[in-house]
C-alpha cells in the first residue's frame, strides 16, 4: 500500500502543474476578453468565395 504515497505525490504534482498553467494564462491576459474570440473564430478568412448569406 506504500504506493499510495507515490500516487498522491503524483496527483498533487499534476494538480500543481494545472494551477501553474492557470496562473500563467491569467498573467498573460488570456482571461481578459472572454467573448470576442468566440465571435472571431466564426468569421471566415474569405467568405466572398463561399457566397454566404
Amino acid at each position: 500500500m506504500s504506493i499510495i504515497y507515490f500516487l498522491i505525490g503524483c496527483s498533487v504534482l499534476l494538480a500543481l502543474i494545472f494551477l501553474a498553467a492557470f496562473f500563467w494564462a491569467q498573467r498573460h491576459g488570456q482571461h481578459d476578453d472572454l467573448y470576442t474570440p468566440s465571435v472571431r473564430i466564426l468569421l471566415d478568412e474569405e467568405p466572398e468565395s463561399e457566397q454566404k448569406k
Partner: protein
Amino acid sequence: MKQGEIKEQTRCYHCGNDCIDERVELDEKVFCCNGCREVYAVLSATGLCNYYSFNDHPGVSREKTGKRFDYLRESSIVKDLVDYSDDQSTIVTFYIPNIHCSSCIWLLEQLNKLNPAIYYSRIDFLRKQIVIRFDNRQASLYDVVVLLDHVGYEPLISLQDVIKKQTTGRKDKLVRKIAVAGFCFGNVMLLSFPEYFGLSGQEEAFKTFFGWLNLAFCLPVVLYSATDYFRSAWTNLKNKVLNIDLPLALGIAVLFGRTAVEVIAHIGPGFADTCCGLVFFLLVGKFVQRKTYYHLSFERDYRSFFPVAVQVMEEHMERSVPLSDIRVGQRILIRNNEIIPADSILLKGDAKIDFSFVTGESVPVSKVLGEVVYAGGRQTGEAIELEVMKPVSQSYLTSLWNNEAFARTQDNRMQTFSGTVSKYFTIVLLAIAFGSFFFWLPFDFHRALSAFTAVLIIACPCALALSTPFTMSAALSILDKNLFYLKNTDVVEQMARIDTIVLDKTGTITIAGGNTIALSGNLSAYEKRLVYSACGNSAHPLSRLICQYLEGARKLNTTAYFELPGRGITAEIDGNSVNVGNERFVKPGPQVNKNAGSTEVHMAINDKYLGYFSISQRYRPGIGAVKDLSPNYNTFLLSGDHGHERAALSEIFDPDFMFFEKSPQDKLDFVKKLQSLGRKVMMIGDGLNDAGALKQSDLGIAITDDVNNFSPGSDAILDGRSLSKLPVFFKFSRDAVRVIYSSFLISLTYNMLGLSYAVSGRLSPLVAAILMPLSTVTIISFTSIAIRLAAKRRSLL
C-alpha cells in the same frame, strides 16, 4: 413640403435606416446619406465588402459627422493618448461606441488592408475597445483616427480617458485567490474522504500522512486566499465597527487553529476541508457580487463631456491646444456642434447656444457680441470666436464639482441589510461562544475549549455572507436585461428604501431637442414676415421657437411693441397690427377644445384670426409610469427650464411639487433639504446640471437614450426606453430584499441546528463538513430560484 413621394420604402445598404430625406446611390446600392456612401466606397475600393455579408446593414448611420481631429497632430496630446511608443511603432487603445456586431470585429481587425502601416488591430467586443499597433514612421495617430472615422467607427476620445489612463493599473488578485482556494479545497476533500468513511487497521498509518497533507493545503488558503478577511476584520475592529468579516475571520482562524492542534497532537483529523471550503465559497460569493459593465462608466464628470482640445487663434493661425493649457485671454474658435469649454466672451459670429445639457433649458439661446457665454453650451450654427475669461476648472459649470457632495466618500451612504444584521449577529455569536466556554470550564477545560471553538466554527456566517451577493447579482443581471444598469449590488437594496423621487425635466422626461412645432392655418409670405418680426422682439422661449420655425423670413420695421407677460405680444409692424399669444388674448369668443400636452400660440393680423402654432415637447413614452408612482412615492419635478409647460405637466405632477428655473446648485440644495427631513431621495436626471443632485441623492439615476453617450456620474444608468418599467423596478427591488430576508432565516435555521451540537462541545468534523456546504448550496439555489420567480411575476424576464 417635400417634393415628390418616394415610391417604395428603401433601407440604407450601410446602416439600415429608412431613406426618407435623402437618397444616394452607388453600385446599384441605396444609401441614406453621403456618410454611409463614403464608407461603402472606401470598403469596396479595398475589397472589404464582405463586411456586408456577415450581417445585414452592419453600419451605423453617418448622418451626423463632421468631427475634426486636428488636435491629434499636437504631440503633447498624442503623448497622453498612446499606450506605448518607441521610434518605430506605437500602440494605442481606443474606445469605439459603435462596435456592435461580428462585422465590426471582422472589419476593424482588417485595418491593415486599408492602411499597411498598421501592424495589427484587435477588438475587445464587450469593452468596445480596439488596440492598434502601427508603424509611426509611416502613419500618425491622426491618420489612424481618420481611417477609423472613414470606415464609420469614430473613436470616443475624451479628456477623462486621458486622465483615467494614469489612475488605472491596480489589479485585483481575486481570481488567483479563488484558484488557490479551489485547488486546495479539492485536494483536501479527496484526502478527507478516507477518514470519514473509516480506515481499517492497516490503513491507520495513512491517517497521519493525510492529516499533515491537509494541514499543508490549509496553509496557502489561510495565509493567501483569506487574507482580505483578516485585514478587514482587523481594520473594522480598530475603528470599533462590527461587521460580518469579524465572525468570518474568527471562524477561519479557529478552523485552522483546531486543525493544526488536532493534526500535530494526533487527536483527530481536524476541519481542513471545512476551512478550505468556507474560504472558497466566500471568495466565489465575492466574485459573483462584482459585476462590471465594461462599456459603462458611472464615474463620468464634466471632463468626459468636454473636448480634449480646442482650436486657439493666434495671429490668424489656428492651433490645437489641450484643454488643460487654455489660458485666460486666449481667443478660441468653436464650430457647429462643438462645446464651449470655458466661460468666455463672445467676440465674433452668430452664437446660438444649446444649454439643454447644462441648464435644462430646452431652446437654444442667442447671444450678442460681448456677452458672457458659460462653459458647457453647444454652439449650433456658424463658427464663433470667443475670448476665455476663466480657466476651465473654474467655470460656472465646473465649480459645481467643488461642492462637498463630490468630496464625500461613498462608502457609508448605503446601509445594507447584511451589514446591519451582522452587527447583532456578531454580538450574539460571541455571547454564545463565551457562554458555552464558561459553562463547561468548571468541569473540563478541554471540553470548554472545544465547545468554544465549535460554536465559532458552526456559526460562521457563511450562508449569511453569501445570501446578499447571490441574490443581488441575480437581480442585477435581470435588471440589466431590462436596460437598467446598476453600479453595484448595494444599489438594489438602496432602491427598495427610496420614498421620494425627484425628476429633472429636459432630457429626462422629455426627449432632448425634441420640440415639435406645427402650424395650423395658412400664412402668406408677407404674413410670415410680420409674425417673424413680432416674435423676433421677444425673448420668450415660445417666440424663439416660432422664429426658429420661420427662419429665413426677413425682419420688418416694428413701430410699436408691447409684451403682456403670460398672454402675448401686440405689435405695430409695417403699418399692420399683429397679435400673437394665447387663444384668449388673440381671439375673442368661444374657445376650441385644447389639445392637452401641447402649447398653442395664436396669431391675428389686423384683427383677422389666422391660425395657431402648436408646440409640444416630446415626452418619453414611459412618462405615464411616473404618474403611477405618485400614490406611493412623493414625486417632484425640478427643472432648469422656464415654467411654460407647467400646465401640461400638471397631469403628471402635483402642481405644488413642480419647481422651475432651478440652477444646478438649487437642485443639489433641494435634494439636501429633502434628506434633512428624513427622506430617502432618488434623483433621476440626465445632464450636467443634475450632476450635483445625482451625487447628493441617496440614489442617483442617469437616464440616457444611448448608454454609450455621456451621462453624468451616478449610481445607475437607465435606458430611456425602460422608463415605463420604473414602478416595476421598484417593486422588484423590494422583492429582492424580501428574498434576502428569507435566505437569512434559512441560514439562521442551519446555524441553530449546528449550534445545538456545538454547545455540547461534541462537534464531529463530519457534521461540520456536511452542514457547511449543505447550507451554502441551499442558500445559493434558494436565492437564485426565488429571484427568478420574482422577476417572472413582475414580467421582467
